[in-house]
């Protein structure tokens, strides 16, 4: 831990270590706070899908259970168009399988953490906190927990608000760019590392080629191409 995170002093007395941990957790929470605004337009979309579902309560519960707006909207969309629960589940799982990659990438930094912290991290894991913690703190668990907690508290509230007002609010086309712009800005500094740059470039090309495919399959292909390109770049160094 201390080798990975210079700010953490392993040999320090427990109260100091606790204070340092709380400080890093607050730093993660603060870093996520401005990013939350980028989720508001998407939360309106998800909230609208929840409100117009044939079973709004179950759809709303999915905000916590699925905890991924794209997968939640896709599941509701498949059901709304007459697909059965099997089709809807396959689509949702395909979109959310990326979370396994995020969790696996976090593993080295979390090996020393107690199981309850790892479970909490898993429950709150999604794109933005993962990208933020990876870029700003090399997956520091305390920083991640702070960032993830901010989104975990805000996201259901935003989706709930979206369920009530989403159909009456038009945020405009520019609002659709908030989320990709924010996620892109969070990971952009990693382009300085050649393997990361290769992975992102390969994913970019793959995403363009697969733009007409369903999101789940396209993201899997982008992940495979990005991983292959990144590993090749590492070996070439």
């Amino acid at each position, binding site marked *: 831990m201390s080798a990975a995170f210079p700010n953490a002093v392993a040999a320090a007395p427990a109260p100091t270590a606790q204070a340092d941990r709380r400080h890093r957790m607050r730093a993660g929470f603060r870093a996520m706070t401005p990013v939350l605004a*980028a989720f508001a337009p998407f939360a309106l979309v998800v909230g609208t899908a929840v409100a117009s579902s044939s079973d709004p309560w*179950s*759809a709303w*519960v*999915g905000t916590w*259970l699925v*905890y991924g707006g794209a*997968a*939640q909207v896709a599941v509701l969309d*498949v*059901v709304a168009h007459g697909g059965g*629960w099997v089709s*809807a*589940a396959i689509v949702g*799982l395909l979109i*959310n399988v990326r*979370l*396994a*990659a*995020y*969790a*696996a*990438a976090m*593993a*080295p930094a*979390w*090996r020393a*953490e107690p199981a309850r912290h*790892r479970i909490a991290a*898993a429950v709150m*894991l999604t794109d933005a906190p993962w*990208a933020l913690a*990876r870029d700003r703190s090399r997956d520091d668990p305390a920083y991640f927990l702070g960032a993830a907690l901010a989104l975990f508290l805000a996201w259901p509230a935003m989706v709930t608000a979206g369920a009530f007002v989403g159909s009456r609010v038009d945020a405009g*086309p*520019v609002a659709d*760019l*908030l989320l*990709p*712009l924010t*996620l*892109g*800005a969070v*990971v*952009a*500094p990693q*382009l300085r590392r050649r*393997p990361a740059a290769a992975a*992102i470039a390969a*994913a*970019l090309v*793959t*995403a*363009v080629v697969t733009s007409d495919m369903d*999101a789940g399959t396209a*993201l899997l292909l*982008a992940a*495979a191409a*990005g*991983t292959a390109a*990144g590993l090749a770049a590492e070996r070439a160094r």
Partner: protein
Amino acid sequence: MTVLIAVLVVGAGSLLFRVVPLLGARHLPDPLTNAAGLAGLAVIAALSVRAVLHHEDAGIVAAPLVAAISIGVGLVLAFRGRSVATAVAAGLATYVVLAAALPSPA
């Protein structure tokens, strides 16, 4: 009932995707976690690209191109060390300016 079952299945599966690697963190070899990190970055890049390619704006011509330029401006600033808020604001401002400057579709 269909929505509830689908949500439960996707929720349980998604939780497994998240929990299993973290609970088994001590057993995951470093090369695998490294590859997973690259995969994660690739997915986030792909999510952003798909959002740009599927961007729709009835008020301007070539909306995906305008979106790509706007996001590009934001990403260049972020790459150069500007804050996320600055990069996002610059990207959005670029879109608004370009949208105002470009003619509407006939």
